[in-house]
């Protein structure tokens, strides 16, 4: 077993922010190579990890590269050489490394990326929204979302198991809201170092460049005669991953007592109005949901825990009985409806279920979304249900000072 030689005594309940929580998960997983570059608000993950390293708690290597693209390139080189590798980034850094994200997934290397979600410039903004998560949505990485430091800690440990599984062999992103989770210290009940490493296990090497008994060429060129098959095979692994993800979540529940699901739900079974959202909004929406229930609205909340691959069947299962579904996207849509709206409507279209589905763009650049906003959303959706139709448009922008912005009108 290749756990770190020096272990840390952790309390039953630690108070960690999202970055520190990530750093402990990386430490406990005994990552071989962390190749990273700092960017707000993910810098804390790298700094805390560097601190563990400097104090002798990390047996692996850490390299601080000269850009995020180089950070991911280093991870890819290390992973191809048979090492467990991981890094952290946000926003502009993610945007810079997008090219390498496609390369990593195409080369089927199980790297873990701790992503602290932050808005994309321009204008420049360091605060939390989901633009970077959305930018990475077609890169072939499994993408999982966390709402709290504890969830991020848990899901990073799971990410190694999921990505390294021989039936998957894909890289994994674990997302959390910038500042709202990454810089907010909350209770985390960590596993002990031993329990965590036992769960993650030893790294399984596949086609390592350092195995000189079997020299291998990685990163070939395929043209029209072979490219399609290899991309299809990669996608097939992605589509087969939910089975592995669910098994890992089951096993993690036994070790930690915390059960994660492909899609998280809160009071959605009998809900008329369901909000679909991700990140810390999921937690705020639960409070708003309870408030609405007191006022007689049958509210519910749904969060895709596993954002990619898209869980169409489970979306249908959780949303089919609703009368209205409000898809809240925390990313500048760039002239379209938001990705959660697209995922939900795509899932429902080929079924007989026809709730009213609307799209809200909110919270860009760290603009607050609070219980008041969400309550209003529930109430307005309730009114739409009673009217039997959407109130004029599919997409509305929530919380902007200025005119009421709505797009994709629906009349009659």
């Amino acid at each position, binding site marked *: 077993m290749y756990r770190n030689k020096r272990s840390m005594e952790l309390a039953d309940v630690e108070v960690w922010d999202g970055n520190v929580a990530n750093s402990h998960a990386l430490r406990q997983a005994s990552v*071989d190579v962390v190749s990273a570059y700092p960017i707000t608000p993910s810098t804390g993950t790298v700094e805390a990890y560097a601190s563990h390293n400097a104090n002798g708690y990390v047996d692996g290597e850490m390299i601080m590269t000269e850009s995020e693209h180089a950070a991911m390139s280093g991870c890819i080189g*290390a992973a191809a050489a048979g*090492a467990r590798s991981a890094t952290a980034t946000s926003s502009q850094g993610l945007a810079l490394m997008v090219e390498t994200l496609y390369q990593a997934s195409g*080369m089927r290397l199980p790297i873990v990326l701790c992503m602290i979600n932050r808005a994309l410039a321009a204008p420049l903004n360091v605060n939390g929204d989901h633009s970077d998560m959305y930018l990475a949505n077609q890169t072939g990485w499994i993408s999982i979302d966390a709402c709290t430091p504890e969830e991020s800690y848990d899901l990073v440990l799971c990410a190694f198991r999921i990505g390294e599984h021989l039936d998957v062999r894909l890289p994994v992103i674990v997302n959390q809201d910038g500042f709202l989770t990454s810089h907010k210290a909350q209770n985390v009940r960590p596993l002990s170092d031993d329990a965590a490493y036992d769960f993650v296990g030893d790294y399984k090497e596949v086609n390592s460049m350092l195995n000189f008994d079997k020299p291998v*060429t990685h990163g070939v060129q395929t043209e029209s005669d072979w490219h399609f098959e290899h991309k299809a095979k990669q996608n097939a692994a992605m589509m087969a991953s939910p089975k592995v993800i669910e098994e890992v979540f089951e096993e993690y529940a036994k070790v930690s007592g915390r059960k994660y699901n492909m899609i998280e739900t809160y009071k959605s079974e009998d809900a008329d109005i369901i909000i679909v959202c991700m990140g810390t909004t999921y937690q705020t929406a639960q409070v708003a949901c309870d408030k609405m229930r007191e006022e007689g609205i049958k509210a519910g909340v749904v969060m895709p825990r596993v954002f990619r691959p898209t869980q169409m069947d489970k979306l249908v299962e959780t949303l089919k009985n609703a009368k209205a579904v409000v898809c809240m996207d925390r990313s500048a849509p760039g002239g379209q409806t938001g990705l959660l709206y697209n995922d939900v409507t795509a899932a429902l279209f080929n079924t007989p279920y026809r709730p009213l589905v609307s799209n809200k763009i909110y919270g860009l650049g760290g603009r607050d979304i609070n219980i008041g906003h969400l309550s209003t959303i529930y109430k307005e959706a309730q009114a739409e249900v009673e009217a039997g139709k959407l109130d004029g448009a599919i997409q509305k922008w929530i919380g902007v000072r200025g005119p009421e912005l709505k797009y994709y009108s629906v009349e009659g």
Partner: protein
Amino acid sequence: MSCSLIGGCTPPQGNKEIKNLKSFSTAAERFEGAHVLCPGCAHSIIVREILNATNDNLVVSASTGCLEVCTAIYPHTSWDCSWIHIGFENSSTAIAGAETANKALRAKGRISADTPEPKFIAFGGDGATYDIGFQWVSGCFERGHDMMYVCLDNEVYANTGGQRSSSTPIGASATTTPAGSHSYGEKQHKKDMLQIMAAHGAPYVAQVAPNKWKDMVKKIQKGFDTKGPVYINAMSACTTEWKFPIHQTIEVSDMATDSLVFPLYEIIDGRELNITYRPKNIVPVRDYLGVQPRFKHLFKPEYEYLIDEWQKRVDKDWDYLQRREESRV
């Protein structure tokens, strides 16, 4: 399975002992034929010379470019060693990642200490090295990884049809800086990568050319013996983009080194400079330019002054190299 082992059953390590060309020729090739590089391609000659200079296990990378595209087209690979290509910028960082992984896995005992240390080599064209991957190479050298970076310098983006790079010399006609009635081609000076990499404090940087094989192999082996990042700028005469006949690769290379357009020297620890090749007969720059149609427009009366300027520049640079070597700074 049976095999004919050269030198016995114990795997030899380290640099190959090369007394002369005949002893060099006993190397067991690790770069196989039937790649799709152009007939007469100097890249291939350089790679063979480098790989044949060592008996060590190898981890090799290449940037997107001629070498990568022509030697690893699915489903064939020409490399009898582990090899990786990620993208255009990052062959250096790919190798840095592998080198770091090697350190980590050895420290953890996942690779046994009995396994001999491999050599890490990153290849990149001049486009990848001088331009798009410049930052990546710089980062690797600043971090001091134990690796060798070889720039295969054919002075253009050859793989995509010959666009200019910051290695393209003044007056060369490249497809994005073509010669025409109102232009003599490339207008910028060739970037001096060797000085730049030396300024990183790299323990060893050197310029090599495949035609001077003994000089090249000596430097490569010195590079392999050096701990830390080593930068090798390898002159690669490109028949397709420099537009000379395919059988003249070595001849043109000879003119490049003998005209001192590509002087062969090394810089140790970023300071001490040694000239390693002094041509018996220095070839005029004009003659070197004359055998390459990419410069043919320079022989028109309105552009001929550029040839004189070029000769002056080469003379000045050669003088500088000699003075620097003499002063032993």
